[in-house]
């Protein structure tokens, strides 16, 4: 179901100058174009720019070595993100952040929309929240929510593509996305109340 490497990988083509040139051209065309996406995801996973650089470089290196296993013209972005995520789990996570286990049922989906009914039902306060604050709110999410919301809302992957990258069922993607978005709304709402952008209801 995932974007895994083929179980019996095709042999690497014999290197000749012409084959090398063709490999490089197709890698630039199909893989390197996703550099910005990989970097954004790496940054949210590792939480710092230096580690994100290293993680992306390692991902590109692994991808280039395994390029003959990638079926040309299919979903290169999903394939690359899978490599990146595996590299992160195997080599970076233990050094950077600890994986959190999350009890889904313990998260009360907070509805900001209902809170805003008397104050700002159109959500105009969003306009006053800057990029850094949003990224900080995403970074505070538990890892499994963070990676889901980044793949969906930042990188625009479909549920099916996210399920393949994360190697979970589509239903899990849906429920994580629902809770992640509600958690984000809650964080940004609290921030906006703290900044005085909206009054907030005393509870």
């Amino acid at each position: 179901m995932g974007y895994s490497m083929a179980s019996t990988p095709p042999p690497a083509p014999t290197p000749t100058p012409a084959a090398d040139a063709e490999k490089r051209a197709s890698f630039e065309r199909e893989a390197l174009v996703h550099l910005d996406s990989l970097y954004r995801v790496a940054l949210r996973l590792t939480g710092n720019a230096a580690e994100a650089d290293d993680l992306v470089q390692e991902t590109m290196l692994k991808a280039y070595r395994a390029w003959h296993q990638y079926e040309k013209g299919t979903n290169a972005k999903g394939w690359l993100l899978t490599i990146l995520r595996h590299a992160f789990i195997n080599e970076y996570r233990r050094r950077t952040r600890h994986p959190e286990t999350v009890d889904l049922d313990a998260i009360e989906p907070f509805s900001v929309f209902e809170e805003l009914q008397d104050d700002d039902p159109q959500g105009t306060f969003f306009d006053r929240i800057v990029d850094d604050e949003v990224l900080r709110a995403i970074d505070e999410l538990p890892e499994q929510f963070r990676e889901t919301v980044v793949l969906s809302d930042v990188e625009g992957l479909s549920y099916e593509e996210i399920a393949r990258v994360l190697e979970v069922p589509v239903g899990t993607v849906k429920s994580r996305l629902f809770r992640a978005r509600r958690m984000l709304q809650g964080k940004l709402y609290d921030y906006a109340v703290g900044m005085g952008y909206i009054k907030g209801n005393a509870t």
Partner: protein
Amino acid sequence: MNCRECSEHLYEYLDRELTPQVEQEIRQHLSDCPPCGEHFDFERLFLDFLRARCRAEGAPPELKRRILRELFDE
């Protein structure tokens, strides 16, 4: 379709993950039911806001140079 069923499909609708038929049923409900319509509008605004705030960042040019050097020995 009632309000509860409609809101169960909230994000699938906004993410364009539904079949055309269910999508049409929801669109119909949203035009008949202003409170649901406002809620969906709010959530759509939130998702647009999220995308707009997070996509500005790209890979640093030095990283790209580093990768090209590493891969192609440039």
